[in-house]
């Protein structure tokens, strides 16, 4: 328990640093936000000054930071210049789309990588092992935005079996009642089979493109960790003691190999958050990454700032969770 507390405490200064960095970054970004708000060309210098004052941009940097911090505490992430909407509301609408995509891709990657890595480690030099190594090497070289495009070409343009890569649901379909925000789950909860299938079809290609990207490090680490564990003395002892093959592999070897694998999972998940931006762009996925890119191009910084903050917060949470899971698997890591 003290380990959990200690770990939580170390996250606080990092989180504070993240807030400072995102704050400073938007202050050095080009363009005067007041001029954007005062987009009417007939506005005089005095009007612009009034807008600056209204936005608090005339305050000293330290006070601006305190205001920003105060707003954050109230869950206020600022206002988008382009849409005029509050960024927090827009994020609440878009976050489930990004989360559903990332979680689906991650689950897909883990479901393939773990069995593959274990199978490869059990029979080094076999065809399965070679396939695993090929995936680990090739997968790490695939730019996710290129694989995404190739998947679109192969399955939508050429084979015609995938839906148009535009959003989470075909435009004529009605979204299910929002419970979790995950369209697939919501459709299931509402008992709408057809909507579920349609949402799943939209999700398949982007999730596959992201999963390909995550497959490589997961397979590689599972294989390496299993090989190392299977060579350990306690496995030899377990074999000599006549334990069943299943007990040895699952209970003894896999559990011990899971520590580095869990760490890699955390890292991979975090990397996927970054890759999200590109995939969402390629598939016109209405998530927060696509939103951040659009705002960046429009010099609309509040959404970008919020995006970086949310990403960093998720990142820190994932790292925290990884450490806790690692400690659960192997209490020695908790020291």
């Amino acid at each position: 328990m003290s380990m959990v507390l200690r770990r939580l405490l170390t996250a606080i200064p990092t989180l504070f640093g993240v807030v400072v960095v995102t704050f400073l970054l938007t202050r050095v970004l080009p363009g005067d936000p007041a001029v954007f708000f005062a987009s009417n060309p007939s506005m005089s210098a005095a009007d612009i000054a009034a807008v600056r004052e209204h936005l608090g941009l005339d305050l000293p940097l330290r006070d601006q930071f305190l205001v920003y911090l105060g707003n954050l505490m109230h869950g206020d992430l600022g206002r988008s210049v382009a849409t005029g909407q509050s960024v927090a509301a827009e994020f609440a609408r878009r976050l489930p789309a990004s989360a559903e995509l990332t979680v689906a891709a991650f689950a897909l990657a883990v479901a393939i990588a773990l069995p593959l890595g274990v199978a490869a480690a059990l029979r080094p030099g076999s065809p399965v092992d070679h396939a695993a190594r090929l995936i680990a090497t090739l997968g790490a070289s695939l730019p996710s935005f290129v694989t995404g495009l190739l998947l679109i070409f192969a399955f939508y343009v050429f084979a015609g079996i995938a839906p148009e890569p535009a959003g989470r649901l075909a435009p004529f379909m009605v979204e299910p009642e929002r419970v979790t925000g995950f369209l697939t789950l919501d459709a299931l909860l509402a008992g709408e089979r057809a909507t579920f299938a349609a949402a799943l079809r939209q999700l398949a290609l982007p999730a596959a493109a992201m999963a390909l990207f995550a497959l490589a490090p997961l397979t590689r680490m599972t294989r390496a960790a299993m090989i190392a564990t299977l060579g350990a003395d306690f496995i030899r002892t377990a074999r000599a003691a006549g334990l069943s093959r299943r007990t040895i592999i699952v209970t003894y070897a896999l559990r011990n190999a899971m520590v580095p694998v869990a760490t890699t999972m955390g890292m991979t998940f975090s990397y996927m958050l970054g890759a999200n931006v590109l995939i969402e762009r390629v598939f016109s996925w209405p998530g927060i990454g696509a939103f951040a890119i659009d705002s960046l191009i429009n010099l609309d910084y509040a959404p970008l700032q919020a995006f970086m903050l949310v990403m960093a917060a998720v990142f820190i949470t994932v790292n925290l969770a990884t450490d806790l899971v690692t400690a659960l698997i192997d209490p020695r890591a908790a020291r």
Partner: protein
Amino acid sequence: MTRIARHLARGNPLDLAGFALFGLLCLTAAFGPLLVAHDPLATDAAAMLQPPSARHWFGTDQIGRDILARVVVAARLDLLIAAGAVGLSMVAGSIMGAFIGYRGGWADVVVSRLVDVMMAFPLFVLAMALVAALGNSVANVVYATAIVNLPFYIRLARAEVRLRRDLGYVEAARVGGAGDGRILMRHLVPNIAAPLVIQGSVNLGWAVLNAAGLSFLGLGVRPPAAEWGIMVAEGVRFIASGQWWIATFPGLALMLAVLAFNLLGDALRDLLDPRLRT
């Protein structure tokens, strides 16, 4: 060099492929502009959106430019960006990491905290914001990629130096009258070079991906310059109408380049640090 040759002769085909691909890439980057049959920037209204043919092996884009020529010429820019970024962050990061690892104290605390904060951002997102903040140019893509990679080198150099700073040879140098600067630069840094070089070679593939991803989003390199990421971006809107070659060939070139760097990184790691072999 002989060690590399002997290792290759023992024949791990993947390592061999890595070195071969890397050599091919370097040659393309060096001599590519001399080899191509078409001007990579010349437009040709009579030959727009042509599929691959004997005249245009990779086809032509929406304004009739030869895609093969553009893919080949782009190698130089893409590799220079990646090599520049990795070189910068390796040198700066190693020196900073070695210094704080050797000295400890408040500099160590401050830099380590900053590194923690940087690592809390997804790197690609941080690079994106940095390019936006620094200004949209190729040089700034190099700097941004270098900056987001600094933490890896700082952490690695710091850890390696901390392992060694009290070893016998450092002690001997100190007794011999060497100052801190000399011990650091002449005795410690050469001894930690191997892991840093391995990190660098693994990093190169990532740097290529990062830079191409940025220009895919419209950050950094600007049209009409030939660069793989931007060429893929230009081909996106033609995918749906079936003109796959515009985005696919630069995409494949990008993949091959990253693959070459990753294989090279693995080979170097096996070579320089047999303990890490998997």
